[in-house]
């Protein structure tokens, strides 16, 4: 057990922290509204090799693990970088994993061609609210049991859907899309990509939550009422004191999900036993991490905005930028309550399998007092 970043990850963290500090940040996020894409920053990002870093070296990428990518996503999230990096990276990894990885070509690896992922299956031939649909040159979507790629790039920006978080959302018509794969393998490839999106979006939300807390703490140390800093009032302190544990917990869970995802890639099977609180199954941890990080980011931005008083509500202060993005990213995929019901289905199904297996081996009944057999 080791909760430190590796030396390489520490370097990655420092490099990207410096990059996002210099090329992005709240001011740039504000000026990139309402589209939510900073073309200049994206051009600069290409020089770092980030767009292709998540793809295996054998396919021409940087060979970064999901754990490495989570470090980058958290740094991007804390500066609310208006860059479609998570979507691009998740999609490159999906393309590179296909039996025919040719769609993950040099332009895609370099990031000069931006790719994106439709999170939800298409309805009536339309991939709806694709996260970076208004800026992606190619969008991968699941249409029935076909994994397709849409390269229809005319008037992309016109398709942008004004939205709460100022994300580059757009619907994409899949009428002219080409098929990449079909059948259960296509469905599984899409599911794996969405699980990676959950994990890296959770990492992004952790970064947002952390910075939102910093903004709130700094404000209440400065702002004076009744002759003293409002941060000296216990009622204000306790609103903020709940957050570090919530955010750190979400961070640890997200890091564990990324670790489990890398183990799954390496062919190591995960465990799913909620009765012993032993969970190393990647899809389960991916879902949990998005729910936990979403909750942390939604609450941290809410509390931080509140302790700003009226200024938090004004456009001038940065906290409102975090507040809206935290909600948009948390709810973009689905209602967290439905995510939880899906999660319950996963561990209850695992339970059914275990029961079936133990019935098969004719093992003794579990002790009802302890749950142990």
């Amino acid at each position: 057990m080791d909760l430190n970043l590796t030396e390489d990850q520490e370097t990655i963290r420092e490099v990207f922290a410096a990059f996002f500090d210099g090329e992005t940040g709240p001011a740039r996020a504000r000026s990139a509204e309402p589209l939510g894409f900073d073309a200049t920053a994206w051009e600069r990002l290409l020089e770092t090799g980030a767009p292709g870093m998540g793809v295996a070296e054998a396919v021409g990428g940087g060979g970064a693990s999901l754990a490495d990518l989570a470090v980058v996503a958290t740094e991007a999230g804390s500066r609310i970088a208006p860059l479609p990096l998570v979507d691009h990276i998740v999609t490159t990894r999906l393309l590179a994993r296909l039996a025919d990885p040719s769609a993950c070509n040099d332009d895609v690896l370099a990031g000069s061609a931006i790719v994106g992922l439709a999170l939800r299956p298409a309805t009536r031939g339309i991939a709806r609210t694709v996260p970076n649909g208004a800026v992606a040159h190619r969008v991968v979507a699941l249409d029935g049991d076909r994994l397709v790629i849409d390269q229809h790039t005319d008037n992309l920006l016109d398709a942008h859907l004004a939205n709460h978080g100022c994300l580059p959302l757009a619907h994409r018509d899949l009428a002219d899309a080409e098929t990449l794969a079909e059948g259960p393998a296509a469905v599984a490839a899409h599911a794996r990509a969405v699980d990676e999106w959950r994990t890296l979006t959770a990492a992004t939300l952790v970064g947002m939550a952390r910075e939102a807390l910093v903004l709130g703490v700094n404000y209440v140390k400065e702002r004076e009422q009744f002759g003293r800093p409002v941060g000296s009032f216990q009622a204000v302190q306790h609103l903020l004191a709940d957050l570090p544990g919530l955010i750190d917990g979400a961070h640890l869970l997200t890091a564990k999900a990324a670790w489990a995802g890398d183990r799954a890639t390496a062919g190591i099977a995960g465990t799913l036993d909620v009765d012993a609180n032993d969970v190393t199954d990647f899809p389960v941890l991916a879902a949990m991490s998005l729910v936990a990080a979403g909750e942390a980011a939604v609450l941290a931005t809410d509390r931080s905005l509140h302790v700003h008083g009226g200024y938090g509500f004004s456009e001038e202060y940065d906290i409102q930028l975090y507040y809206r993005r935290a909600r948009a990213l948390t709810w973009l995929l689905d209602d967290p309550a439905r995510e939880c019901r899906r999660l319950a289905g996963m561990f209850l199904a695992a339970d059914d399998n275990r029961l079936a297996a133990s019935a098969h081996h004719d093992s003794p009944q579990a002790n009802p007092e302890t749950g142990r057999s």
Partner: protein
Amino acid sequence: MDFSLGERTEAFRVQVRAFLDEHLTADVIERMHASGTFNDKDFNGALAEAGLLAGAVPGYGDRDPIELYVLFNELEKAGAPYDGLAVTMLVAGVIHAVGTDFHHTEVLERLLTGQFNCCLGYSEPDHGSDVAAITTKAVRDGDEWVIDGQKMWTTMAHEADWVILLTRTNPDVPKHKGLTMFLVPMGLPGIEVQPVPTMASERTNATFYSGVRVGDEWRLGEVDGGWAVMGVALAFERGVMGGTNPAVPLLNHVRNWAAEAPSPDGGTMLDDPLLRERLARTAMANQVSQLLTLRAAWIAATGGLPGLEGSMAKLYATERYQQAVGWFQQMAGAEGLLSFGVDGAAADGWIDYDGRHSPVVTIYGGTTEINRNNVAERHLGLPRAR
């Protein structure tokens, strides 16, 4: 980051689980709830004999804090009696850190047989969170000290062989600077134990000390250095030794109940979408609580002092447990109100039990408000509010 426990720790966990399979019988659990004392000397003795006790003492044994966490986490998840064991570990750790050879021979070695117990004498009727203000006094008389006062929440005092007692030895200095810690044999004349029943099944006590004479060899740490000894004890207590995974057995009890319980809407309660959502939220919170606790253990294992991280783990885990208990009590309806041993009780009475037990977890071992103060002042750097 690497979230695997490693071969050695995994092997230890397997050993603990095998021990629990053999020794944690339904009888042990029933006895614990019937007596209200979450301490079982036979069980503790078996644990010591299996070689699982001494190694885990912080600083003393050859096991690291992650293994200490593993031991208590497995005990907690299995619903085993561990309150006495937690105090044993804490006091053994304190003796190892600041005790004398006398304390080692007289107390530590006996504690590690599992057949002896200690209880904690910190809080008083008028001094709970503000524990440095306690007034139980110890006055020197030659080679002895004479102790007078009263302690509250001295859980297990009626079964304990010693109390680790915080006393005031100097009333004329700032409150933190006039405290001295003693180990006091419970059999001494002048000590009286009165039971304090609680709304849950656990029993605690008030203890009274009237002219209790104890030799100076029972003093633990320096005269007027009691606050430093408290600091050592609290660092062991918070987070690592149980208390952060109570919702693991809860989840197990509730889902076993839900699989059988008919829903008024048809099917079983396990088909209820809201119940399924809440089971998943509980499973998620259990993972987060585990990770926050493991972090505290890992910091201790790598030479740090995880005081704040322990506060964060306790804040998160206890509030989530209370929230989950509230959800499931509500969803179990009338059957959820029925107690242990009652016909038709949901989850055999566990839901009622958790409902009775849960209010205390945000109070004992440092209240939620004290922990929030710690995080606000020492982690967020906000001005002192008191």
